[in-house]
C-alpha cells in the first residue's frame, strides 16, 4: 500500500454552502504532505472530515487500505489551528486524560509522557495548571499531547504559530523525525517558506476545489518558465544588451550582483537550449552568474490561485 490516506471525491455542504466540491487527495506513506490554500478554501473542513469530527456528504476515505471508521481515531494525531487545553486542569492530568481518550492505557500513557516531558525538559510543569504557563509553554504541551500515542497519521494545522524561532525550529525537527520514524504528516499552513523546508508533496485547495496536487519538485518543474538569471562582465554592456534582445526574450533583472556586471533575466523558447544562450554569452564576455529561475512555493501558490479566479 503506497498511500496511507486516500480521499476520494469528497463533497461537504453546510446548508446551501458547498465547502468541499469533489475533492480527491492521495497522501503517500511516510511523506510530509502540505495542504495549502487561502483562508476559507475548505482546508479545515477537509481536516475535520479526516478526523471524523464531521462526516462527508458523499465520497470515501481510506486509511491504510481500510475505510475510515471511529476506531481509527487512535491512529490519528491532530493539532488544530485554534488550539487550547483545559485552563484549570493540571498539565500532567490533562495529558493523561487526552492520551487515554486516544486509547492508551494509563500506565502506557505515563511512560510515553515521561519520555516526551524529559525530551522537552518540561517535567517540572507536570503539576502546574495550564493557566500558569506561558503561551509558548502551553503549545509545547499541546504538541506532546498530539504526538504521544504514536499515530500513523499526524495532522498539523499551522504548527508553528505561537512559537519563537528557536522553538519553531525544535518542533520542525521533531516533525521531520516523526516522519523518518514512519509517520505520515499532513501539514496545513500559510507560511510558504516552511512548505519549502518541510513538504514532499502538496495539494492546493481554492474555493472548495482542489486545483493542484502532486510532488513538490514535479509541480515546480511544471511551473518553471525556462527563465534564467544572467550576469555578464563585458566591455560593451549597451551593445551586448541590444544583441541579446534581438536574439532572445529579455526582461529586466530581478536580482542584484556585487559588481557592475550587465544583469538580465532571459526567457528561452521551447526550441532554444541553455547551451545556445551560454555560447552567445561566453562569446561576448565573462559569465559571472547563470541560474535557472525556479518558482518558489509562494510563486506557485499565487499563480495557481490567480489562474483559478
Amino acid at each position, binding site marked *: 500500500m503506497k498511500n496511507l490516506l486516500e480521499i476520494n471525491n469528497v463533497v461537504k*455542504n*453546510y*446548508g446551501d454552502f458547498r465547502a468541499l466540491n469533489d475533492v480527491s487527495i492521495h497522501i503517500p506513506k511516510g511523506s510530509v504532505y502540505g495542504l495549502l490554500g487561502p483562508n476559507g478554501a475548505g482546508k479545515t473542513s477537509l481536516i*475535520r472530515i479526516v*478526523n*471524523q*469530527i*464531521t*462526516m*462527508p*456528504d458523499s465520497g470515501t476515505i481510506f486509511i491504510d487500505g481500510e475505510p475510515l471508521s*471511529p476506531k481509527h*481515531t487512535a491512529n*490519528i494525531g*491532530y493539532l*488544530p489551528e*485554534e*488550539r*487550547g*487545553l*483545559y*485552563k*484549570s*486542569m493540571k498539565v500532567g492530568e490533562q495529558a493523561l*486524560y*487526552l492520551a*487515554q*481518550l*486516544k486509547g492508551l492505557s494509563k500506565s502506557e500513557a505515563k511512560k510515553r509522557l515521561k519520555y516526551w516531558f524529559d525530551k522537552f525538559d518540561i517535567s517540572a510543569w507536570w503539576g502546574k495548571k495550564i493557566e500558569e504557563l506561558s503561551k509558548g509553554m502551553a503549545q509545547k504541551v*499541546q504538541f506532546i*499531547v498530539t504526538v504521544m500515542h504514536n499515530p500513523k497519521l499526524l495532522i498539523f494545522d499551522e504548527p508553528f504559530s505561537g512559537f519563537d524561532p528557536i522553538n519553531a525550529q525544535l518542533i520542525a525537527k521533531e516533525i521531520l523525525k516523526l516522519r523518518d520514524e514512519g509517520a505520515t504528516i499532513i501539514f496545513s499552513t500559510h507560511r510558504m517558506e516552511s512548505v519549502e523546508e518541510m513538504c514532499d508533496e502538496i495539494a492546493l485547495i481554492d474555493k472548495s476545489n482542489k486545483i493542484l496536487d502532486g510532488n513538490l519538485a514535479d509541480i515546480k518543474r511544471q511551473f518553471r518558465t525556462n527563465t534564467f538569471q544572467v550576469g555578464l562582465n563585458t566591455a560593451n554592456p549597451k551593445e551586448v544588451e541590444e544583441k541579446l534582445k534581438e536574439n532572445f526574450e529579455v526582461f529586466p533583472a530581478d536580482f542584484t550582483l556585487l559588481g557592475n556586471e550587465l544583469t538580465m533575466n532571459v526567457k528561452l523558447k521551447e526550441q532554444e537550449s541553455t547551451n545556445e544562450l551560454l555560447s552567445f554569452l561566453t562569446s561576448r564576455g565573462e559569465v559571472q552568474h547563470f541560474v535557472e529561475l525556479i518558482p518558489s512555493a509562494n510563486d506557485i501558490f499565487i499563480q495557481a490561485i490567480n489562474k483559478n479566479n
Partner: protein
Amino acid sequence: MSKLKLIIQREFIAKVRNKSFIIMTFLSPLIMVGMGALVFFLMKKNEEKIKEIVYVDESKLFSKDDFSDTETIHYQDFTALGVEATKKKVEEGHYAGVLIIPKKESLELLAKSIEFYSKDSPGMSVMNSLENKIETKLRNEKLTNFGIDLDKIKESKIQTDIKMYNFSGEESSKLINGLKIGVGAIAGYLLMMFVMIYGTSVMRSVIEEKTSRIIEVIVSSVKPFQLMMGKIVGNAAAGLLQFFIWGILLFIIMTVASSVFGVDMVEMQTAKLPADQLEAAKQAAGGDKMQVIIQEILRLPILKMFVLFIFYFLGGYMLYSSLFAAVGAAVDNETDTQQFMLPIMLPLILGVYVGFATVINDPHGSIAVLFSHIPFTSPIVMLMRVPFGVSWYELVISMTLLLVTFVFMVWLAAKIYRVGILMYGKKPTYKDLYKWLKYKG
C-alpha cells in the same frame, strides 16, 4: 476504560475539585441553618418586648378580667383619669396605645364607636387580639340580655372529629394529607433546584470547552454525543454528591444545635399554633392517632414513590440538561445565553407554580393531571401528585411521554451541540439553530 467513563470521571472530578463547589457544599448548610436560627432568634427577641396598652372604659361594661395580661401585652385601666388626660399621658409616655370605650345607648352602637390611639400603628396581631376581647365581651353581654345562661353555652360546646376510612376499611387521618403535600412539594422543588443548578453547570462547562478551544482536540478523539452525555452524567453525579453531603450536614447540625441549645424541634414548630389548634394537634399526636399515622406512613407506597422519584428526577434532569448543553454549544460566552435560557426556564418555573397552585388543592384535578403529562412539567407536577396515589395507566402514559420526549430532545440537542461547538463568532439566531439541525454528520 471506555471513553464515556473517562469523560464522566473527568467532568466529575473537575466539578468536585472546583473551589466554589467545595465552598458551596460545606457552607450552604451552615448558612441555611444560620439564617433559620437568626430568624428564630429575632422572632423571640421581638416577642420578648412587652407592650403596655391602657384603656379608658366609660361604658363600665368591662372589668379587669376582660383585659387579662398576655405574654406580650399588658393592660392597665386608666378610666379614672378620663379620656383627654389619658391620651396626653400615652402620647408622652412609653405606652403602646390607648383603647377608648365610650358610653353608648346600645351594644351595637358601642361596638362601632370604640377607638384606639397610638403613636406607631399597631401590628395585626395586637388589633386582632383587642377586637377578639371586645367581641367576646359584647357577645356575652348580648346573650345575657337575651336571658341565656352563659354556663350552658360553655357546656354546649362540642368537638367533632370525623374519622376517615378508605373502602378497604383502613383508617386514615387528616395530618397525613399534610405530610403527602409536604413530601410532594419537597420532591418537586428539589428537582427544580437541581435542574437549575446543575443544568447551568453543564452549560458553563460546555462554554468553557469552547472558549478554551480544547473542544476540537476532544472531538477528534470522541464523538460529540459521548462528550455531551459524559458532561451531563458527570455533573449529575457531582450534584447528587453535593445533595447527599448537604443532607448529612443538615442532619448533623440540627442534632448538634438542638442538643446544645435545648431547642425542641417539635415545640419550635407547634409554638406558633393558636392554643385550640395546639390542643388538637397534641390530641392527634397522642395515643391511638399516633398509631394510625405511623400505620399510614407505612402504608404509603414508599417503594413506588422512591422508584418514581428516581425516574422523574433523572428524566427531568436529563431532558433539561441536554437543552442547557445545546445552549452552551450555540454561544461563545455566558452573556449570550439569555435569549435561549428563557424558553428553558419557563416550563420549569411553570411546573413548580402549577404544582403548588393546583396539586395541593386537588391532586387529581384536571389541571394537575394535564401538567403531570406534559413532559416538560411532568417531572415536577407528577412528583407532587405521586404521594396521593396516581393510577398506573396515568403513570405509564406520563412516563412514556417523558421518555420519548427525553430521547427526542437529547437527539435534537446533540445535533445543535455537534455543530455549535465548532462555531465561533456571530451569536446564532433560532433560524441558525434550525439550519444546524439539517447539517449532515
